[in-house]
């Protein structure tokens, strides 16, 4: 065995070779270590005097000065987020001998909650060494005074001034602005070294909303001061200061008056309302109801408050406008009609006979109109006006699901709009591809039909609906919806406009296509029979719009629902409304979604109208007369009138499988 190996490998020669190599290596290592020693001789002997001098002078340390965070305003300069001076208690753990005993003694001077102590201890573990760690934020003047008298008893504890964030409008803007909160260990993990350096001395960071998406603009960069310290590390004097660069001020496209009007019109009903300027994509109002007070989060929310917010059944922290998904119902009809014109498969004058029932040729399954007996012979304009299902069943079928999905995708459905807020969801645009990811069974024609009336797999965010409405109103030119209007270096500097050019070419092929669909949407509000006819009274411009009432649950039977009780219907329906005005030159587009509304036109329509009323006032006009004073549910005045916006019942064929439940609430 041994001999055989020796024949393959020359063991003896190898050992000798290794010996030589090890000795050579060791010689090189000794040389290297000597070189290091020579460097130490250079520093410690040759330049010793110089470094001793520098060490003696070395009582000067740099200390970061955090930048003031940029302020946030609405488009008219109304302050939405500002900084107010406050004081906090900071502890440098390395200077405290017995932390628990100290905290006990300190608690007798300044009240410290268990929450404070828990957060503090967590931060001590995560903290950077020899840095003051905040123990109590927002001290009262009384507390500051009491601590000052007792300060000598607490080495390592200091009262430190800082700027804290305040949101003067509280809940009104919570879902837009979001809030800042304390920087935690996860934030630090995410940052690279340079970023971490730029947060030296900063305690807060944008968590959600505008505060998060424009964190880089708002944060600024820190300055430094050189401070002279004594042997205990206490500051004796400030020698030199490099001032910090404050964050930029940010002006939002939101108009607070419109925002408040929308919020009031929603009257606390869960849902969302969004207004967009179709000429540039500026978001004028962005409301998600219910909301919450962002001020609670800034200096650490108490666990009781947090629990209340997270366990509330209506989920106030949930941004419905951005993240809620709902079936769009009949609001997709104008967009589908536009697609039919664009593809050349419909002319405005083409008619369809609505008999109350539409059956796929060659199949026994049938799909119902809203109105028993149907709307008779309707062309495109009438079909939009009356929301005639049969017209759109047929159109969807002729178009086919692939072209339908591509067309609707072009209007922004099924993908993020790209608004400058974090956490947007994509919703669902029904398509073969989408279904293939969920189910093995192929696409059924019945699913195309119900897609034509915005039911079935459809799920859109209120923002997507507003975006599509604005894109149409702006004659097809798409703009990414955005909230950032201007930035500003300081209060005395000029506002610098932030341009958002169109995100693509117009989706409209020719102007007459737009005119036809617009005529239909005008008729919804302005004809005698339109579903939104109650909304036109007293308004100075022509409004164009479309209602939608979508079902929260798939139907169990094909039977007409005879229960006309509003509360009962509200528990089963989503009420949607889209509108823009003036119809001949649209300057504002709105989308309103109520999570629980009986009818799109009756419940969401008046909300849209109130937003438009406020817009008229903001534009300098007189306040339009309330079309239905003291009466919220105008359109239900005559419950027997079946031309009112009825739910569009998709009698999904059993073979196609039930459409998914509306799962918008929990996403």
């Amino acid at each position, binding site marked *: 065995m041994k001999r055989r190996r020796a024949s393959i490998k020359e063991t003896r020669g190898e050992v000798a070779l*290794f010996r030589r190599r090890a000795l050579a290596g060791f010689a090189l*290592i000794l040389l290297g270590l000597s070189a290091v*020693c020579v*460097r*130490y001789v250079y*520093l*410690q002997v040759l330049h010793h005097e110089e470094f001793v001098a520098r060490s003696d002078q070395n009582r000067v*340390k740099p200390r970061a000065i955090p930048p003031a965070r940029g302020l946030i305003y609405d488009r008219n300069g109304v302050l939405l987020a500002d900084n107010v001076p406050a004081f906090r208690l900071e502890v440098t753990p390395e200077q405290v001998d017995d932390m628990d005993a100290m905290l006990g003694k300190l608690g007798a001077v300044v009240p410290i909650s268990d929450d404070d102590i828990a957060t503090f201890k967590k931060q001590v573990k995560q903290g950077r060494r020899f840095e003051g760690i905040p123990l109590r934020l927002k001290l009262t003047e009384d507390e500051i005074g009491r601590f000052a008298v007792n300060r000598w008893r607490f080495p390592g504890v200091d009262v430190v001034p800082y700027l804290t964030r305040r949101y003067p409008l509280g809940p009104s803007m919570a879902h837009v602005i979001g809030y800042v909160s304390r920087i935690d260990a996860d934030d630090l*993990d995410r940052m690279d*070294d340079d970023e971490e350096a730029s947060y030296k001395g900063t305690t807060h960071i944008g968590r959600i909303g505008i505060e998060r998406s424009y964190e880089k603009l708002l944060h600024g960069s820190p300055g430094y001061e050189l401070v002279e310290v004594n042997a205990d590390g206490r500051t004796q004097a400030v020698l030199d200061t490099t001032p910090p660069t404050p964050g930029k001020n940010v002006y939002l496209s939101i108009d607070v008056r419109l925002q408040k009007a929308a919020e009031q019109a929603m009257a606390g009903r869960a849902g969302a309302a969004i207004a967009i300027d179709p000429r540039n994509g500026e978001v004028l109002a962005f409301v998600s109801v219910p909301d919450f007070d962002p001020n609670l989060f800034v200096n650490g929310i108490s666990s009781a408050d947090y629990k209340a917010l997270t366990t509330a059944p209506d989920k106030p922290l949930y941004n419905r406008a951005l993240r809620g998904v709902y079936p769009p119902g009949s609001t997709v009809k104008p967009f589908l009609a536009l697609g039919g014109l664009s593809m050349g498969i419909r002319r405005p004058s083409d008619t369809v006979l609505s008999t109350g029932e539409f059956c796929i040729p060659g199949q026994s399954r049938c799909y119902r109109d809203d109105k028993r007996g149907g709307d008779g012979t309707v062309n495109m304009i009438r079909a939009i006006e009356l929301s005639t299902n049969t017209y759109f069943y047929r159109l969807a079928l002729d178009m086919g699901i692939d072209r339908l999905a591509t067309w609707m995708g072009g209007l922004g459905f099924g993908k993020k709009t790209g608004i400058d807020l974090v956490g947007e969801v994509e919703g669902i645009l029904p398509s073969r591809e989408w279904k293939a990811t969920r189910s093995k069974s192929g696409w059924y024609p019945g699913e195309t039909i119900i897609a034509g009336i915005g039911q079935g797999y459809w799920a859109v965010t209120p923002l997507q609906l507003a975006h599509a409405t604005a894109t149409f109103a702006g004659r097809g030119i798409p703009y990414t919806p955005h909230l950032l209007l201007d930035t500003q270096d300081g209060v005395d500097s000029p506002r610098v406009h932030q341009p958002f050019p169109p995100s693509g070419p117009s989706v409209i092929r020719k102007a007459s296509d737009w005119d036809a669909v617009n005529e239909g949407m005008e008729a919804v509000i302005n004809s005698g029979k339109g579903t939104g006819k109650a909304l036109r009274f007293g308004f100075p411009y022509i409004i164009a719009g479309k209602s939608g009432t979508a079902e929260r649950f798939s139907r169990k039977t094909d039977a007409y629902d005879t229960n006309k009780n509003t509360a009962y219907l509200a528990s089963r329906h989503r009420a949607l409304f889209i509108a823009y005005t003036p119809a001949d030159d649209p300057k504002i587009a709105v989308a309103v979604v109520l999570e629980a509304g009986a009818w799109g036109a009756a419940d969401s329509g008046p909300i849209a109208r109130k937003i438009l009323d406020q817009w008229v006032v903001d534009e300098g006009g007189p306040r339009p007369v309330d079309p239905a004073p003291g009466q919220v549910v105008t359109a239900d005045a005559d419950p027997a009138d079946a031309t009112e916006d009825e739910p569009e019942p998709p009698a999904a064929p059993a073979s196609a499988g039930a459409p998914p439940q509306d799962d918008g609430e929990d996403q």
Partner: protein
Amino acid sequence: MFPQLALRLKRFGLRLLSKPRLDIPLLLALFVLAIVGLSNLYSAGNGNDSLVIGQAARFVLGGVLLLVISRIPPPVLRSWTPWLYLGSTALLVVVAILGEGRGAYRWLDLGVMRFQPSELLKLTMPMMVAWYLHPRQLPPGWKDIAVVGLLIAVPAGLIAEQPDLGTALLVAGAGAFALFLSGMAWWRIGLLGGAVGAVIPVAWQFLHEYQRNRVRTLLDPESDPLGKGWHIIQSKIAVGSGGAFGKGWQHGTQSRLEFLPEHTTDFAFAVFSEEFGLIGVILIMLLYAFIIGRCLWIAMNARDTYSRLLAGAIGMSFFVYVAVNGGMVAGILPVVGVPMPLLSYGGTSAVSLLTGFGVLMSIHANRKLHD
């Protein structure tokens, strides 16, 4: 049955006695180093007991691992080697995937403790190279050099990506030393070295911005005295003001007044230099040189190629720690986060170092009998 077993045990015991498993001089040197490290830590941490206790606990854990591993014969280690290497490299991949988009990410959270898979490579890398070269004809030709180069490049690249340049350097160094010790011809080393030198300008493009900044700051630290140059300037002041004889234990003002950043970890040796002066530095360097020399002596007396290469590579990579950290503290090498062995606080480095010495002890115990 029983008498037979008893006989076996007796023979085993006799062999243990006649061939002591642990190399006493090496163990003694490590012990002295550990004591120096703990007392330096006590001073650097301004008398913070918990730091010292924590480090001592790591030493105890490392010591236990050293004892356990010294009982595993090298052939067993050799048979495990490919799996250990593949396993540790796989963990690197896991970390790389988990770390996607999270900045510097090196840790694997095991719930009870977090550990850096890159630490494992410090040992499994030289093991793998030794394992590969063990059955081959030495000195190696280009083909074997290329294979070894690949074995080194994959994990080292993953670690450098994390980004952790210091550890990548240590891991690559350990593998390269095994190759060097295997007798790779000088002219080949020269040629390869020349090629690497030519690649450096290209590699510069791939460095992270913060790594480039560290090199830039190194070249001209005074240019940015409040930012990146702060570490280097303060460290040089600490070392230089220590002089020939030092300021005395616990009298180093640089660390006591917190001017010296990271003074318990990466810059612990600056504290030592400040307090014990050039005399202390030279004594410590001699101690390190002794440890490295002793490792190479053990390697020379090892039984087979695998043990020789492994022991030699572990010993020589010890030098990389000392030279890189010593050079960094003195301001001649970039700040790359390589600890001073057994002097710097924390991390898993103390544990992994002592584990490596466990392997050396095992190789020593199974040394070849002198002719």
